[in-house]
């Protein structure tokens, strides 16, 4: 289990040779499958590792080290699919240097988080709307040129970025990594600080879990009350709770089971907010997102 990696250093600490051009190319190609096994626990972790493998096998000739490396490369990750090669290059260069494992993990998450936001703004909210606007209009006029143009522009951009970033960041990392090793301990600590700071931040940025209870008479909105104490208090509390469970030895799978139970029991009684996406006879969404099995309070309809 990712959470079971306790070894802090690789067994073989001799820096590996530079990875072959061929491996880098394979990694670029495999980076297209970053989201192949996307799921809400670790998001892109599975696809990430799939993408890293060509590099990792070259770098870790010691089989135990390869296992070690593969294990921690299954940590939670979420970043933009085009920009991921940047993170891949950096991480690969650290793997090659046999950098302290925790440092690799910290750098990986600290880089991935912000790149996700940047990539979304650049590609999902800029490139796609613009090309879709132009190409959609062409298609509306009956021309198949719209489809062709869309594929051309979109893929020219993504391949250019993926290829360039992978090579650039791998070289960058290779250079930087060696200067860092003289104060390795201090660097690991600093990287962990940044990493933990980013994790705190991710909770606030992405955590959306809320309580649903809104009563109209007397007027009570429990989530508003919670927000008055601390916005995003639930995501924070749940994460910290899970952290202590995992520290106690729970496996991630067990945590997931727990959350599914909590989720379904929570909506059974109308306590947790959730969107069923169900529609009533007139195609309108349900008030409060769903109808609880046990309705013990009246959800305001307006």
């Amino acid at each position, binding site marked *: 289990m990712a959470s079971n990696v306790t070894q802090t250093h690789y067994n073989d600490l001799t820096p590996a040779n530079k990875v072959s051009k061929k491996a880098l190319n394979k990694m670029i190609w495999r980076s297209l499958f*970053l989201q192949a096994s996307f799921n809400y626990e670790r998001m892109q972790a599975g696809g990430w590792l799939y993408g890293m493998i060509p590099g990792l096998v070259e770098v870790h000739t010691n089989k135990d080290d390869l296992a070690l490396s593969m294990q921690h490369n299954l940590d939670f990750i979420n970043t933009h699919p085009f920009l991921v090669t940047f993170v891949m290059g950096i991480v690969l260069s650290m793997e090659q240097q046999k950098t302290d494992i925790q440092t690799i993990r910290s750098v990986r998450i600290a880089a991935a988080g912000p790149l996700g936001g940047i990539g979304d703004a650049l590609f*999902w909210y800029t490139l796609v709307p613009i090309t879709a606007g132009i190409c959609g209009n062409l298609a509306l006029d009956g021309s198949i040129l719209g489809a062709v143009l869309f594929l051309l522009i979109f893929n020219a951009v993504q391949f250019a970025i993926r290829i360039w970033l992978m090579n650039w960041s791998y070289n960058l990392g290779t250079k930087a990594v060696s200067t860092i090793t003289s104060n390795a301990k201090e660097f690991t600590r*600093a990287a962990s600080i940044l990493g933990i700071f*980013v994790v705190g931040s991710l909770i606030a940025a*992405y955590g959306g879990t809320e309580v649903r209870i809104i009563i109209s008479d007397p007027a009570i909105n429990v989530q508003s009350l919670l927000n008055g104490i601390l916005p995003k208090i639930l995501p924070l509390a*749940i994460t910290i709770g899970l952290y202590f469970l995992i520290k106690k030895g729970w496996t991630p799978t067990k945590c997931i089971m727990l959350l599914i139970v909590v989720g379904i029991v929570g909506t059974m009684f109308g306590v947790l907010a959730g969107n069923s996406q169900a529609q009533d006879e007139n195609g309108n969404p349900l008030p409060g997102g769903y109808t609880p099995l046990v309705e013990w309070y009246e959800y305001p309809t307006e």
Partner: protein
Amino acid sequence: MNVNIIQALLVFVVTFIMAIDQFSFLESLYQPVVLCPIIGAILGNFELGVVVGGAYQLMQIGSMPVGGAQPPNAIIGGIMATVFAISLGLEPSAEGVGAALGLAVPFAVFGQYAVTVTFTLMSGMMAKADEAAAKADTKGIAHINYLSMAILGTLFGVIAVAGLYSGQALGEALREFSLNFSWVMAGLDAAGGMMKFVGFAVLMKVMMSNDMWGYFLAGFAVTVIMSAVPSISGSALLLVSFIGLAIALADYQLNSKIKASAGSAGNGGMSDGI
């Protein structure tokens, strides 16, 4: 509309591919502007497919999956819009195809829902991945990814073919099912939203030490502040990383100096022990 088995098979194969493509591979084949003409061609009206594709593409501008949250699904939506446009014999023009887009909405919503549930349930797959990794089984990792894609593709293929055959009736049935069990659907949605906290917690276990709780909470606090200011909430993570960088570099600078100072000032063996 009469659909023969070959057409159904082709629709299945195309949908299978597109379902994978929406998250993996080129992430562009699946866009309505590309997809609808293909479906149109299969069903015998390429031109109408092109126009429906354009219309659907424009309609859904701006709805992209961000942070894993799903918008109404463009594939199922696009396919059904094309199916309805052809079966109703609509005009290949912007106004003409409007009705088909409307009829396709419940299917797009159902597609969104199918993805969300899949992503929630596939969290279980990670335990398998952990096992494979522990054995350095690179093939195993590959298979998990292939399998995941196959599941998503099959699921979508089945939905599309079912939609192809039963059209509106199926739409209605789906709607009713999710209406009656809305609390289960909502529960899965809520659970899905919480899954990432497991990932965060694992990361915390890796990086946290007792004197870092402050940084953890500070990162949280700063982001809460930023998220409360609309015009910068979008750049929150980047701004946070700037501040985090300052903190990390300061810590690095100071601790390196402390080490140097300790090392310089006496018995060399000391420096490692601190």
